[in-house]
């Protein structure tokens, strides 16, 4: 087991653990903390996969902005700090559903090659060249969506609308 594999396994364990914790813990603020740890773990995995730019991006966008946004959302919508989140009366159905889908995907995964393979690294220049030339269209689309999302969000939360 090379060092990297060990690192990967640890990081994967952390990711799954924090994800579960984020969803199961009662305190809303705690979920925000757990989810930020989850994002950091993911960015670490990206670094592991030689996708440095993405790692940074993940850190910046998710670990930073999204977590803060969520925190902000939590703060606004709660009457009292640390109010406990009511456990939902959920039936076994969704749990079974999630488990089944995981099992299926794992089943599919088993078909993949199991012997180790090397990971390619790409220079950020290649990435940016890819983004701005062949995948230019996606970028423009991304831009447009962001713009409209912005307008929509402003419209939704503006004052004076009864």
């Amino acid at each position, binding site marked *: 087991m*090379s060092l*990297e*594999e060990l690192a*990967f*396994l640890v990081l994967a364990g952390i990711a*799954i653990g924090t*994800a*579960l914790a*984020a*969803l199961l813990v009662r305190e809303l603020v705690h*979920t925000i903390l757990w*989810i930020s740890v*989850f*994002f950091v773990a*993911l960015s670490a995995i*990206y670094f592991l*996969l*030689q*996708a440095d*730019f*993405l790692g940074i991006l993940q850190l910046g*966008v*998710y670990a930073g902005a*999204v977590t803060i*946004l*969520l925190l902000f*959302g939590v703060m*606004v*919508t709660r009457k009292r700090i640390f109010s406990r*989140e009511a456990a*939902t009366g*959920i039936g076994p159905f*969704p749990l079974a*559903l*999630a*488990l089944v889908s995981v099992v299926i*995907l*794992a089943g599919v*995964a088993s078909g*993949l*090659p*199991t012997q*180790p*393979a*090397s*990971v*390619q690294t*790409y220079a950020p220049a*290649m*990435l940016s060249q*890819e*983004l701005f030339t*062949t*995948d230019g269209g996606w970028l423009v689309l*991304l831009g447009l969506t*962001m713009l409209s999302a912005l307008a929509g*969000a*402003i419209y*939704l*939360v503006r004052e004076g609308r009864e």
Partner: protein
Amino acid sequence: MTDFVVAQFVGLSAALLGIGLFGILTRRNFILLLIAIEIAINAAVLNFVYFAGFATGPGGVSGQAAAVVIVGLAATEVAVGLAIVLALNRQRGSINVAEATTLRQ
């Protein structure tokens, strides 16, 4: 060059997707719903990244490009989600998903 086993990565993203789904289906609070969705999306981005990595040949980089775009999208999605949360909160006072059924009639 670091060597990894693809299956492990796929297993990881499958697990993350499972957790995401579980979150979506069970949690009644809107914000938690958003978080669960974020987890599921990250599972997908992870897929893109490691397949980009394991791809042989120059085309692989488009995987990372796609990952970038999706991360961007996910961010906007959270923003809009929160806008909805705020609006919902102001109008209905609670952000419990089960009560927001006005669309049903």
